[in-house]
């Protein structure tokens, strides 16, 4: 596959009031052609800084970026006609109508004005095209922003949090839109906090934390590489703590989650049954643990989608899904180790 976006060792440090904040610490990302590529990370992890640098809105301190094989930002004027982008909150001049906003952008970008109404229709804004942007809700402005990004019929669409402000139906439409774009050959790179959405629509993901990539690759591979040899075990309420002690002593890792135990480092589920039965503890339920993108995200970043990053830059060993793992474990460095919050009775 051809790489549409290549970012290698991107560095960016902000200086404010004499203080330095390293936003990007050698970030690396590759987006392949035709993919819907999710870009995930906690607030302040460097997502928007990366996208801004890619689009020439800020200057990176180091590293290299390429779009369609051309070095940017130097070649940005040459490739920008193939890129549609919305970075951060959609911002338009509030006194213009939605149609005027798009027509002015079309004029500036040499796009046929006839495309404006088609894109407004596509994002469901045809009925409000004559209204001023100041009367639009956040979700409508988001739709207008997406329409502006699609106006050029771009080969690469970059969307920063496109689901912000959308209602559930709007999120579903957005998901379908991204899927349709990718099916039509357009590459979509988007950042999001809605991990379930990302998992549903993305072909590949890059996870960033503390300005570094902590995981990347096809969604299935990322999930598979973080799937623990784990089972969920349910016992009677009073038996959870003794069972945890027994399993930890036997060499398993155990985390209590609500009314059950998540037991890791388990080669065969029957081993759990055997160990517990030996101590007079009997299972009520035993199922293989499934890993979703959210749990991987939490494990890698140590934070909820809206929380702070768990690690400082320079922390984790970055690994692409499918690459050989360091050591004998099946996790990405110390962040994943933290996910094994062992219950030490």
């Amino acid at each position, binding site marked *: 596959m051809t790489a549409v976006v290549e970012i290698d060792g991107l560095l960016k440090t902000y200086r404010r009031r004499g203080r330095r904040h390293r936003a990007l610490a050698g970030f690396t990302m590759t987006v392949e052609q035709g993919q819907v590529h999710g870009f995930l990370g906690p607030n302040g992890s460097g997502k928007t800084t990366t996208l801004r640098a890619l689009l020439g809105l800020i200057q990176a301190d180091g590293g290299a970026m390429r779009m369609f094989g051309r070095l940017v930002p130097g070649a940005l004027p040459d490739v*920008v006609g193939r890129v549609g982008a919305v970075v951060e909150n959609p911002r338009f001049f509030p006194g213009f109508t939605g149609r005027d906003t798009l*027509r002015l952008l079309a004029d500036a970008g040499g796009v046929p004005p006839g495309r404006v109404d088609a894109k407004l229709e596509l994002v469901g804004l045809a009925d409000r095209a004559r209204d001023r942007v100041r009367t639009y809700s956040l979700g409508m402005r988001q739709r207008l922003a997406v329409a502006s990004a699609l106006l050029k019929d771009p080969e690469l669409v970059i969307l920063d949090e496109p689901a912000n402000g959308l209602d559930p139906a709007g999120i579903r439409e957005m998901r379908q839109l991204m899927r349709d774009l990718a099916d039509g050959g357009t590459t979509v790179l988007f950042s999001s906090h809605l991990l379930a959405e990302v998992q549903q629509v993305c072909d590949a993901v890059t996870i960033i934390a503390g300005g570094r990539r902590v995981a990347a690759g096809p969604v299935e591979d990322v999930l598979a590489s973080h799937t623990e040899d784990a089972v969920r075990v349910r016992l009677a309420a009073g038996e959870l703590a003794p069972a945890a002690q027994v399993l930890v002593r036997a060499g398993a890792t155990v985390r209590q989650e609500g009314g059950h135990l998540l037991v890791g480092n388990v080669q065969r589920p029957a081993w759990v049954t055997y160990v517990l039965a030996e101590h007079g503890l009997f299972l009520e339920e035993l199922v293989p643990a499934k890993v979703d993108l959210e749990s991987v995200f939490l494990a890698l970043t140590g934070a909820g989608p809206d929380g702070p990053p768990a690690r400082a830059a320079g922390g984790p060993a970055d690994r692409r899904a499918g690459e050989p793992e360091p050591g004998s474990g099946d996790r990405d460095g110390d962040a994943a180790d933290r996910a094994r919050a062992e219950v030490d009775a």
Partner: protein
Amino acid sequence: MRLLRAEVRRFAKRRLIRWTVGVFVLLLGLVLAGASYQSRPVTAAALATAQARAGTQLAEARAAHAERVAPCVDAVRQGRPPPPEFTADCDAAAAPSPDWYPVAEFLPYQLSFRDEVDGYLLLYGALLALVALLVGASFIGAEWSSGALANLLVWRPQRGRVLLTKLVVAVGAILALGTATAALWLGGVYAVARFDGTVQGTTAGLLQSAGLGAVRAVGLAALVGAFAFALASIGRHTAAAFGAVIGLALVSEVGMAFAGSVLRLRYPGAFQLSTYGQAWVTRSVTLDPVVCAMGATCRADARDITWLHALGVFGAGTVLALLVAFVVLRRRAIT
């Protein structure tokens, strides 16, 4: 060209700009209408009426004076000293004379193109400069503060070209507006004078001088617009330009006046922008040294500030502000 066309359309669609231009044209129209309403050509009948009213007022004043000094006149006639509130000649010097009631004061207002065209140009120039300040600052300031400029830069990642195009459109629009309205304004003032006042004494030289004054007024507006554009771009807000202009005016007029007195500057006016503004409009301003302020005559030491000096000061300030705006934009993180 595409960008230029888009920016021209964007400029024309801005409501604040439309309203500002509309109010400006309306104000000019109202001033001309007011002048037309008030000005009346002096006819023979009007002159006769004015002469009669002047004569009547003089007669009434003389009668009142005679009545007031009557006790004094009687006393003098009877050989007594005049009352203390009167002079020895019974206030003869205070007796009303025809000079006190010139006929011209009893004539209706008559606009004289020759005498008043400079004043009308000054008013026009001040209004146009205000319009230029607002248009120049808001065209870029509102784009910055609304985030629309960042959006545009994603579409056209050529910062210098985008800013230059916007500047060309703003200044070009001010020049176009100024050229059109200046011609209409001078024509309007002349028409009012022609039909409701007088154009007596209007020579080709006067018309040429008025035309050049209008050109200077339009030129000043273009400089003001570009300066405001640069300030608003640096400050990323329309209000930043207004604040900077007000601050500059305070420093120039109040601060420099104070500094001039403390530092005993010989020509403090040479450091005040108002001097250059006046020189721009009136072609030249003569500054006397401060030591002459008490009435001493020392014209030999006087210094002339001409409109060319003003062009140098305003031009250099505008170019400097624009350079800073372009350098800042080149390095700025667009947020």
